[in-house]
């Protein structure tokens, strides 16, 4: 405090003092209902603001645990509040002593100089505590400071006393309450014991019910739902859950639960790591994971918030879970999951609770295992049923009484009987009557044999009977198994109708081809690499006279020695060398009879599927008949040729005879004529005077007739030569020929009036001299037979078509009677008398002969006294004619 104090300072100081006193006196009101700690702090603060010391230390006794409560403050320097505490504690022993014994100052713990102290005990002899204020001010503590400190201490003491009183009062009440409570507790304990008993009973009943449900085969998930509901109800927990360990082993799936936020059950997952309770539950016991056999130790959490083993999954935290317990639901080969119960209030689970949870977990495990087993069973059953059902073969199982106990789909179809009608019925219904006894015997022997499996093929073709009465062939295998206390026979039956049919078809086809081969007229044989016959058809039997039985297996050359003698063995060898050869005109000898003949053989190699020659095949034809026929034909040909030669010779002879005839005619016929003529001429010369007129006329007639006969002979010879003469064929200008002939005929036409009308004529192919003779004859005729006409008209022309050229000579002469037209072209045929028109009737015969030799035709048209037209045609082609 300052030495010199002004009155205004005094007033100001007093005013402040009053204000501080008011502030301090208000403290108890502030302290009502506050904690002791708060009171200490509040008191320290109040002293700091009123006394403005450098440090304040408050110590209050009376905390429930008996330890003093301290509060320290340092003015503007909170860092030295600790030192205030030190100071306060150091000064504590003085509280019970006289105030005067207090040291006025202590060394400044936070710096230089000293700190002056003011202490005030709270309560009697400081029983409620003390307050200390220290300041570096040299005037500390002033009267005012002491007053304020004392007031504050008193206020605190009063408050603390009051509190203590209140506390005592409360404690009394508490004691009363406690007594009451103890009484109640005693009662409650009895009730609780009873309740616990009931709870246990309930739990046991619940577990039993759950177990029953599980055993009854309740759906696993329904069972889980029921289990968690049961747990929640029975343990009075808000949350219960079944977590299923997912196959990856990394997550647990919230399979069933109660109390969880909507939408989580059936969706949420929890990490299976050790940071989750569930994960810890599983993983904390590694050996058991592998075993998966027991539920293991339960994991119990009193307070998740202070749990140290794991942090707890968000699921639990989000739901404000505090306490909980979880057990493993064991599973086959690995745990199924975790069963848990949780509360938001702290809870200590009892042993009963744990047992209950474990019991539920066991039931679930059992249910899970049962389901798994059932599923496995179903799967294997389905697999088996699938195998049996889908088997192509009928599978029929019969018991010891021969009753059907298994009848698969194939059996239904095969035997045309639904399983429902077959099961439990004797198997005999599917065996034809005549086979039943044998079948029963067979089955009996099989049972006695002790064999587990046996083909029934040894029985030969088996026949089964369809429900509709149809019998069909089967193939069966029978086996026996011990099951359900008896021996079951399982028959696997195959319908071989189709196979039998196919086999039959193959057999028939084979038979057919064999018959075909046999019916072949040709011989067909096959031989192996050693030339042993491996096939020999009936054709071969016919040809060789050797039966199939004799031939097969025999070496060809041993069986038929002639093969080597004739060299026909080389065909066998060539076929075996892979060549196809044809053996023609091979002689053969039938071994037994010695009959001889000829055959023709086509030898070819027989190849196996690898293309190797394994033998040979020959198709043999007996050509004896053909050969004979050929020989006959040859003989006939020889004969024919000889006959042709003979005939030719005859013809040549005839021709020669004809020639010599002509020659004779020419010589021998002409000679007498000449002699008649000669001697008649001589007679005429010598005796003309001795003869009268008639005699002379006779001589003349003889001479004339002789001359005519000579002409006839000459013409006849020329006609004969015409037929024999060589004929050439060249291009012939018909215009030229006609012109020449007209020139030649000019003398005959000289004193005549002849009107010629001659068309331009086409060229033809032919013999010019002969064609010239044709024109000569026709034109001469035309001139001759128009002799009676004052004006003769002779027309020469031609027309052509695609085949021939047609020429004609038309005149206006005497014509002829068409009745005799056929005679016109005959040799020595004349329609007019010699006196009328001279001629010997060979001209037109020559025309016809020449035109025929050219391949053409001749004809004529005429009217008596009305003229005649003579036609001839020549073919356009150079062909034809002789």
């Amino acid at each position, binding site marked *: 405090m300052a030495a010199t104090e002004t009155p205004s300072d005094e007033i100001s100081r007093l005013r402040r003092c009053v204000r501080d006193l008011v502030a301090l006196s208000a403290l108890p009101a502030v302290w009502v209902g506050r904690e002791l700690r708060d009171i200490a702090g509040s008191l320290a603060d109040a002293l700091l603001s009123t006394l403005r010391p450098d440090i304040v230390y408050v110590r209050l006794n009376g905390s429930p645990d008996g330890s003093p409560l301290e509060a320290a403050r340092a003015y503007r320097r909170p860092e030295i509040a600790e030192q205030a505490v030190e100071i306060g504690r150091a000064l504590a022993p003085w509280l019970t002593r006289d105030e005067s014994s207090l040291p006025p100052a202590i060394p400044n713990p936070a710096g230089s100089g000293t700190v002056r102290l003011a202490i005030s005990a709270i309560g009697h002899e400081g029983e409620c505590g003390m307050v200390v204020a220290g300041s570096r001010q040299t005037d500390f503590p002033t009267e005012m400071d002491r007053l304020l400190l004392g007031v504050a201490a008193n206020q605190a003491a009063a408050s603390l006393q009051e509190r203590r009183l209140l506390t005592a009062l409360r404690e009394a009440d508490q004691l009363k309450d406690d007594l009451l409570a103890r009484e109640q507790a005693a009662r409650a304990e009895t009730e609780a014991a009873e309740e616990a008993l009931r709870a246990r009973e309930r739990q046991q009943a619940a577990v039993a019910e759950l177990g029953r449900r599980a055993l009854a085969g309740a759906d696993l998930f329904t069972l889980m739902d029921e289990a968690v509901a049961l747990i929640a109800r029975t343990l009075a927990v808000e949350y219960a859950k079944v977590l299923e360990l997912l196959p990856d082993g990394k997550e647990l799936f919230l399979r069933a639960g109660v109390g969880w936020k909507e939408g989580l059950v059936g969706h949420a997952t929890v990490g299976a790591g050790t940071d989750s309770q569930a994960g810890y539950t599983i993983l904390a016991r590694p050996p058991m994971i592998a075993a998966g056999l027991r539920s293991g130790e339960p994991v119990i959490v009193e307070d998740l918030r202070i749990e140290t083993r794991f942090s707890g999954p968000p699921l639990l935290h989000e739901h404000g879970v505090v306490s909980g317990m979880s057990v493993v639901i064991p599973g086959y080969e690995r745990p199924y999951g975790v069963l848990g119960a949780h509360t938001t209030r702290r809870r200590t689970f009892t042993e009963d609770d744990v047992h209950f949870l474990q019991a539920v977990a066991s039931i679930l495990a059992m249910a899970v295992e049962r389901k798994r087993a059932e599923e496995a069973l179903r799967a294997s059953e389905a697999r088996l049923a699938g195998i049996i059902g889908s088997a192509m073969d009928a599978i029929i199982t019969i018991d010891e009484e021969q009753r059907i106990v298994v009848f698969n789909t194939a059996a239904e179809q095969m035997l045309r009987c639904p399983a429902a009608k077959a099961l439990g019925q004797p198997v005999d219904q599917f065996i034809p009557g005549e086979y039943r006894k044998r079948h029963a015997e067979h089955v009996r022997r099989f049972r006695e044999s002790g064999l587990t499996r046996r083909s029934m093929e040894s029985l030969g073709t088996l026949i089964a009977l369809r429900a509709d009465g149809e019998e069909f062939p089967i193939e069966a295998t029978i086996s026996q198994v011990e099951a359900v206390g008896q021996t079951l026979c399982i028959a696997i039956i195959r319908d071989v109708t189709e196979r039998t049919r196919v086999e039959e078809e193959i057999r028939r086809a084979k038979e057919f081809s064999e018959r075909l081969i046999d019916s072949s007229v040709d011989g067909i044989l096959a031989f192996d690499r050693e030339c042993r016959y491996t096939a020999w058809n009936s054709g071969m039997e016919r040809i060789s006279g050797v039966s199939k039985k004799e031939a097969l297996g025999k070496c060809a050359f041993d069986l038929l020695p002639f093969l080597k003698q004739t060299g026909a063995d080389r065909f066998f060898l060539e076929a075996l060398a892979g060549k196809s050869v044809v053996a023609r005109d091979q002689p053969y000898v039938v071994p037994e009879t010695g009959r001889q003949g000829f055959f023709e053989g086509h030898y070819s190699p027989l190849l196996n599927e690898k293309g190797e020659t394994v033998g040979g095949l020959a198709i043999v034809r007996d050509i004896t008949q053909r050969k004979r026929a050929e020989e006959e034909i040859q003989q006939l040909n020889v004969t024919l040729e000889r006959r042709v030669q003979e005939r030719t010779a005859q013809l040549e002879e005839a021709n020669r005879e004809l020639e010599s005839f002509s020659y004779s005619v020419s010589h021998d016929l002409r000679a007498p004529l000449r002699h008649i003529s000669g001697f008649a001429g001589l007679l005429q010369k010598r005796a003309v005077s001795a003869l009268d007129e008639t005699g002379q006329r006779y001589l003349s007639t003889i001479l004339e007739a002789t001359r005519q006969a000579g002409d006839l002979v*000459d013409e006849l010879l020329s006609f004969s030569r015409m037929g024999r003469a060589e004929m050439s064929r060249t291009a012939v200008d018909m215009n030229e020929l006609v012109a020449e002939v007209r020139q030649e005929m000019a003398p005959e036409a000289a004193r005549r009036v002849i009107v010629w009308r001659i068309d331009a004529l086409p060229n033809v192919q032919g013999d010019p001299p002969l064609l010239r003779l044709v024109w000569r004859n026709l034109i001469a005729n035309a001139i001759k037979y128009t002799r009676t006409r004052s004006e003769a008209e002779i027309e020469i022309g031609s027309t052509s078509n695609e085949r021939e050229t047609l020429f004609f000579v038309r005149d206006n002469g005497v014509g002829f009677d068409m009745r005799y037209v056929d005679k016109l072209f005959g040799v020595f045929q004349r329609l007019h008398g010699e006196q009328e028109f001279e001629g010997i009737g060979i001209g037109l015969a020559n025309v016809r002969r020449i035109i025929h030799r050219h391949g053409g035709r001749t004809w004529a048209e005429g009217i008596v006294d009305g003229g005649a037209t003579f036609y001839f045609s020549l073919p356009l082609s150079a062909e034809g004619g002789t």
Partner: protein
Amino acid sequence: MLELKRVLLVEDNPHDVELTLTALAESHLANEVVVVRDGEEALDYLYRRGAYRMRAEGNPAVVLLDLKLPKVDGLEVLAQLKADPQIKAVPVVILTSSREERDLVQSYNLGVNAYVVKPVDFHEFVESVKEIGLFWAVINQPPPGSIAHTG
């Protein structure tokens, strides 16, 4: 019979011989004609053998040869004559009834000197023979060794 004449007539038919000689007579050649009746005789005459071995030497001026002859026919005689260098020069005239081309061709091929077909008509015949006789026995100069025309 053994003298050499200028015309050798080879003709078997007596009528023809007579007529021919009659015709030759008109050319005054009748006495110059030796008549033989067949081919063999003709050859005998020409080669002076057989019945003619005593005849005088020399060849006729012409041989009138018929084709149709007994024994050796006219063509054979012609062939032999014309094949013999010694007598092939003797002119041979075929006098025949044959108009056969074959005979004609063969005769010329064998080297005949002329070929005459005897006409049937007597007058024509006489004319033909007269002309032949005149030409070959008189007009034609025969090869050496032949009987020359005596006038």
